[in-house]
């Protein structure tokens, strides 16, 4: 191909490449948006951990662990004896984001 022919071919290909690049970017963005949306809407997993609470007037802790690949978005505590027991804390782990 002559030098002029090669330049014309490159020129005629450029618009196609830009359109293709824009299409790829838009597709990836749409897939990411859909993925995040689906993850929040359907991907909530509820985990729990029940432990014995000794009658010793000392605070005791328990952790519920999220599945691999997920993190704790929130959590809480339920007492079995609401008349004599107290909740003394409920928070995420400071060292492991899978624990509440």
């Amino acid at each position, binding site marked *: 191909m002559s030098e002029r022919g090669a330049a014309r071919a490159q020129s005629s290909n450029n618009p196609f490449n830009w359109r293709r690049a824009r299409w790829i970017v838009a597709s990836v963005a749409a897939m990411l948006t859909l993925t995040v949306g689906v993850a929040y809407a359907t*991907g909530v997993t*509820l985990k729990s951990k029940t432990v014995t609470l000794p009658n010793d007037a000392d605070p005791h802790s328990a952790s519920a662990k999220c599945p691999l690949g997920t993190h704790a978005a929130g959590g809480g505590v339920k007492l079995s*004896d609401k008349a*004599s027991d107290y909740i003394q804390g409920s*928070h995420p782990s400071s060292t492991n984001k899978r624990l509440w």
Partner: protein
Amino acid sequence: MVGVAWRDSSESTTSSFTTYALCIKGPLTYVQHSKTLAGDDSHHTVKATCPSGTKATGGGIKLGDPDNDYMVGTYPPGAAGWVGAAWRASSLGSDATFTAWVVCAPSGHITVKSKSFSLPDDNKAHVGTVNCGTAGNVTGGGIKLGDPDNDSEEGTYPAGKSGWNGIAARGGTGANTFTVYAVCVK
């Protein structure tokens, strides 16, 4: 972490408690903020705030002296933060610390739902439930007492994956209220 509970030593048997975690795959940011808890027989609050452009999915509270202090509230004051409320007796003769935690996700389909419930003057536990309904799945929640200096918080935990339960008991005189919150993500 962590759920923390305490049982009176005058009880003759052990009991149990359950800690819950609601888990998602989205990118999350964890923020904590601590402050002094005055030993003055009054409740105090501490707030953790989400970074700009994010909203709270859940949150909680950690007591610096869980042997002596009381957790009397954990709830979202709006869309982008979390409040912890605690009480410390003046008879201890010193102050302590307490910490609020908030978990934050990019702003989007996150909705805070709340409902106020009556709390009769009967010193019994009363349950209030807030459901997410069409707002999606629950990722966190909390409870706010109408009279945190006299009432007690006896439960704050998910009602399955679609709502939140708050349990309170009245220690003061006359009827009062408590509010249950559910953070819902769609």
